[in-house]
């Protein structure tokens, strides 16, 4: 654990804070503010957990982006998962955060209490154990996530294919980060000066994946880990670019992020998946922002295997998760926040997952 302690060193944090204050002062001298979006939910949680937002200078604002895969999974998908869970021959295998996400009328955790078989997994590979333990049942893995989780789920799929396992399928809602950045950068209502780019997603896609975006929109992109000292260091890098008026991709997580990403993971993605226009909960359709199983792998697709349909989503009209996900408002600006909507009774998706912006604000800075 020494490795972690080094990235949580209070002296290092204090030193970088000072640098941030100096840079923010220079920026202020230029009459500028810095609106920085942390795209990834793990960054939002780490920023809350280590209380970084509160200690930044006034003209440096952190805006939480749409980077929690649970939050942006639309209610039609949850409804389909619940429909499957309620069948006697099916076991739903899922990452834990998904079980509390509200569909249009209920949640997986409520279905479980009525007898549906829902298993919380720590890794996609748990599905293999379930398939052996329950050979007479069909295991449906809730395959959601960004590039980070897509890779290990496809690792599972390659084993299913190789070993010809008949009783596991995937209900997919995979999303991609770069198209979301593009949608946010081109939204005229938003005013984002820089992106703090995700750590784990970047391990998969590589630092170079952001270059076309940065060249097109002239917005600095800095990749940082989820450790507090490195988040501060990443913010310092962003402020330096803003002070100097430059825009480039900076990789401050070089110990894991290569320029070209993970070849093995990218190979799996191009083998099994194809790009499509995906629907994001609260945001709507973003062109080319999702990936789904190619036609020749449709036999692993739970919607095909069990002949079900993903219906378009319905949403509570007072819920402002869409504006939160785009960074237009802070969670605390939503009229439902910490009142009608709270982690025990989440109305919007951002309150559900532990990595959702509203949940992070509720947990750490209410």
């Amino acid at each position, binding site marked *: 654990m020494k490795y972690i302690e080094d990235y949580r060193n209070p002296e290092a944090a204090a030193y970088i804070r000072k640098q941030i204050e100096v840079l923010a002062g220079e920026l202020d001298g230029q009459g500028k503010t810095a609106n920085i979006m942390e795209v990834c939910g*793990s960054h939002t949680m780490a920023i809350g957990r*280590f*209380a970084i937002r509160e200690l930044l200078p006034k003209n440096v604002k952190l805006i939480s982006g749409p980077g929690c895969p*649970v939050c942006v999974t639309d209610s039609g998908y949850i409804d389909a998962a619940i429909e499957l869970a309620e069948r006697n021959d099916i076991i739903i295998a899922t*990452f*834990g955060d998904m079980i*509390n996400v509200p569909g249009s009328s209920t949640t997986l955790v409520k279905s479980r209490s009525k007898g549906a078989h829902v298993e919380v997994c720590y890794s996609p590979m748990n599905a293999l154990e379930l398939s052996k333990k329950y050979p007479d049942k069909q295991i449906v893995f809730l395959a959601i996530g960004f590039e980070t989780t897509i890779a290990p789920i496809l690792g599972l799929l390659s084993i299913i294919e190789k070993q010809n396992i008949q009783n596991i399928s995937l209900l997919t809602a995979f999303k991609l980060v770069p198209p979301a950045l593009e949608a946010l950068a081109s939204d005229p209502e938003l005013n984002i000066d820089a992106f703090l780019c995700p750590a784990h997603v970047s391990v998969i896609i590589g630092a170079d994946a952001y270059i076309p975006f940065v060249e097109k929109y002239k917005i600095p992109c800095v990749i940082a880990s989820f450790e507090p000292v490195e988040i501060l260091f990443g913010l310092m890098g962003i402020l330096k670019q803003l002070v100097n008026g430059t825009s480039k991709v900076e990789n401050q997580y070089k110990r894991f992020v290569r320029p070209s990403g993970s070849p093995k993971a990218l190979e799996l993605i191009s083998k099994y998946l194809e790009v499509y226009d995906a629907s994001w909960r609260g945001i709507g359709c973003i062109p080319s922002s999702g990936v789904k199983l190619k036609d020749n792998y449709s036999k692993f697709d739970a919607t095909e295997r069990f002949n079900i349909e993903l219906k378009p989503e319905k949403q509570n009209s007072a819920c402002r998760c869409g504006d939160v996900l785009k960074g237009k408002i802070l969670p605390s600006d939503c009229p439902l926040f910490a009142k009608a909507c709270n982690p025990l009774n989440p109305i919007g998706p951002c309150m559900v997952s532990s990595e959702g912006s509203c949940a992070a604000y509720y947990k*750490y800075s209410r």
Partner: protein
Amino acid sequence: MTNTIQIAHGGGGRLSSQLIDEEIVSRFGEGPLKNLPDAALLPNPNSKIVFSTDSFVVHPLMFPGGNIGNLAVHGTINDVSVSGGRPLWLSLGLILEEGLSLDILRTVLDTIKKTAEECNVKIVTGDTKVVSRGQCDGMYINTAGIGVALENFNLDKNSILPGDSVLVSGTIGDHGMAVLAAREGINIENGPVSDTASVHKLVEIAHEFGQSVRFMRDPTRGGVAAVLNEIASGTNIGFKLESSSIPLSKGTDSISEILGIDPLNVACEGRMLLICDSSAADKMLEKWNQIPEGSGATIIGKATTVAGRVELLTVTGGTRLIDVSQGELLPRIC
């Protein structure tokens, strides 16, 4: 005797008597339990008594650092102790599932006997029931404990003043993470080990400081976060902890980082939180540190004037809320 529990072991016939004689009386048959009366006849302690009960359900029954038997003794003793009592007597209620291995039952009963002896408490009454397969998870245990109230304690959360010190008797979250890791088959080298232990000796030390001690609690379910929030709620005080002072074992730290679970929300089974006048805190800590149960004790924070709010000063120098968990501890997706 067969090597698993059968329904007939709870039927009141020959198998029942055999089970009680061979497994219960052989271990606990001295003192009030001798001749198996329906109730224990106990001497009047001539003081206020402290009485508590707790039920124990844990999966798996055996985990690194202990088993359900340690928990059943420590859990109730600790509730009596932190309420200002010196534990004396325990009841032992067993609910056994048909098919439970007798070897497991014997291991658990041996543990209960040994643990009770170490803590100087007697099992004075009990009951055993057997339920059909599927109606319980191996075995459930209920214990109730009686202790005598220690004089000179004035434990009341409303007596806490801003500036009072918050002490914890050792590393936090170890029990919850050890059970979670064992249940989910997460095997790492030097992983978490349950802290299950009695805090009664720590309470005896605290007793020497009498009125300086404002309040004590054992942070079981919900962890340190739940206990401090519960104490602060409805009072005029809050708490501020320093993250760098909170003791964490390497194993618990590692697993909670991997799963994204905050150790402040995770159960301990052998620790206590104590809030005292800050002038007594260093002395108390020094004494606690001298016994094994308190060797890892530290001062983790102070009471504040921010009513009802529990906060953490983080390594970055920022301050954030410490909230209670929402119930089920769920690992994060990525």
